[in-house]
């Protein structure tokens, strides 16, 4: 068996209001695989991704990227580990008044600490690389355009380019297609699959649509009330399995 690149073990999270969002989640995604995480609202999908990058602090359990354990790290060590894991949000979260190119280049900031970047400067080499990444996601011509003038699909692809700029080993995506039209949805999912298969990233993508998961994913994982209730190769998953896992969006 291939050693998993992204591993979550026994992850638990209870919010201050008493909600148990994650109840001992175990999950592993190897390099080169697109795993899709399904689940109804409140099943803990988003919390899982947020705990993975420590945007939310888990109560117990571990998150590993390769040999590095993210849980328990602080300061510079945490920043280095975070740069290994890229998180794509439901909204693109671009800096509106900056160009697509500047937004993408900013993804690489973790690799360039120092005075220049602390005062808002971007490393020269990263701009050239950002241009390549924008080409890769099909937006080379819009590099100079301000982020708030991009369409939803273009903004989301720019956000993916920004995630790639941080040179991650793991790509996490939290409902990246939730606000996109069908064409942009297919293009984005195809891009994520390509990043797994061609670039050998471990990709974990939260989705709401089981049909989309079955057509793009290598593996399907379903969460229900903070627990993994299904974890299987997509080719072995039937609609009945999905119904049993109660993953339908409500």
């Amino acid at each position, binding site marked *: 068996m291939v050693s998993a690149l992204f591993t979550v073990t026994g992850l638990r999270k209870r919010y201050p209001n008493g909600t148990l969002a994650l109840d001992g989640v175990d999950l592993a995604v190897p390099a080169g695989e697109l795993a899709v995480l399904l689940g109804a609202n409140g099943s803990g999908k988003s919390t899982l991704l947020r705990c993975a990058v420590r*945007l939310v602090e888990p109560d117990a359990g571990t998150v590993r990227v390769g040999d590095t354990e993210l849980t328990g790290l602080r300061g510079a060590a945490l920043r280095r580990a*975070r*740069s290994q894991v*890229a*998180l794509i949000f439901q909204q693109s*979260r671009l800096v509106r008044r900056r160009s697509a190119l500047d937004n993408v280049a*900013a993804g690489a*900031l*973790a690799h360039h600490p120092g005075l220049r970047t602390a005062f*808002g400067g971007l490393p020269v080499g990263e701009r050239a690389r950002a241009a390549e990444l924008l080409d890769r996601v099909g937006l080379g011509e819009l590099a100079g355009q301000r982020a708030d003038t991009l369409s939803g699909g273009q903004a989301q692809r720019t956000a993916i380019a920004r995630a790639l700029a941080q040179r991650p080993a793991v790509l996490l995506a939290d409902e990246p297609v939730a606000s996109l039209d069908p064409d942009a949805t297919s293009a984005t999912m195809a891009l994520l699959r390509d990043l797994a298969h061609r670039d050998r990233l471990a990709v974990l993508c939260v989705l709401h649509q089981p049909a989309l998961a079955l057509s793009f994913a290598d593996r399907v994982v379903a969460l229900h009330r903070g627990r993994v209730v299904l974890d299987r190769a997509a080719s072995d998953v039937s609609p009945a399995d999905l119904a049993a896992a109660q993953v339908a969006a409500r």
Partner: protein
Amino acid sequence: MGRRLVVGAAVLVGLLVLGQALLVAEVDPRKLVEGLGGVFRLVADGWPPDPGALPTAGLAVLQTVDIALVATVAATLLAIPFGAAAARPRSGGRYLSAPVRAVAAFLRAIPDLVWALVFVAAVGLGPFAGVLALTVHSVGMLVRLFAEAIDEMDIGPADALLTAGATRTQVFSHAVLPELLPTLGSLALYRFEQNVRSSLVLGFVGAGGIGFQLLSAMEEFQYRQASMLLLVLFALITVFELGSARVRAALR
């Protein structure tokens, strides 16, 4: 019935409060009527404005604007880091917010005129005392306004860079500042406008600028000079308000 009683009592209390205010403030319409003649005489004596006062007025106006300019730039540069420190902490581990807010509240609670008295005593008469007074007071105002602007902004882009491994300083300069810049610019310009007006009054306590000239002219009964100064001042403030309104609209 009971409700009427309450309303009646409230009206009575309101009248009593207003009544004592009129007494304590020594409001006396007779004095106003008697004094009106004096006001008209002053206006008549000040007409026509003395063009001879223009060169002095020009220099004094420049000084007034420059006091406000230096103070606004200094206050803005200081208020950006302190405003960021005063913003509501979004993640644990930051205890700066409350003390920075408290200091800023103290700085702005003391009127700039009082700060001017303090700094005239410290660095002597002249425009520099005015610069210091306006800077200190403006820092107090701008830290609060900047912190509120940061509190209200969308933190999505900042979170995105933070989870990508950027340092807090990088997050601030690459995600927070670019989003905030138009707001900060607009607030600083508005502050500049107010500082031009304040800098004028500071002249009265010897902190330089056109206010000092105005006071001297009045004390020496040079009313035609004084009216020229007032005219220049009016023109200045009008130009300022128009200009700053345009720039602020363009920033949006």
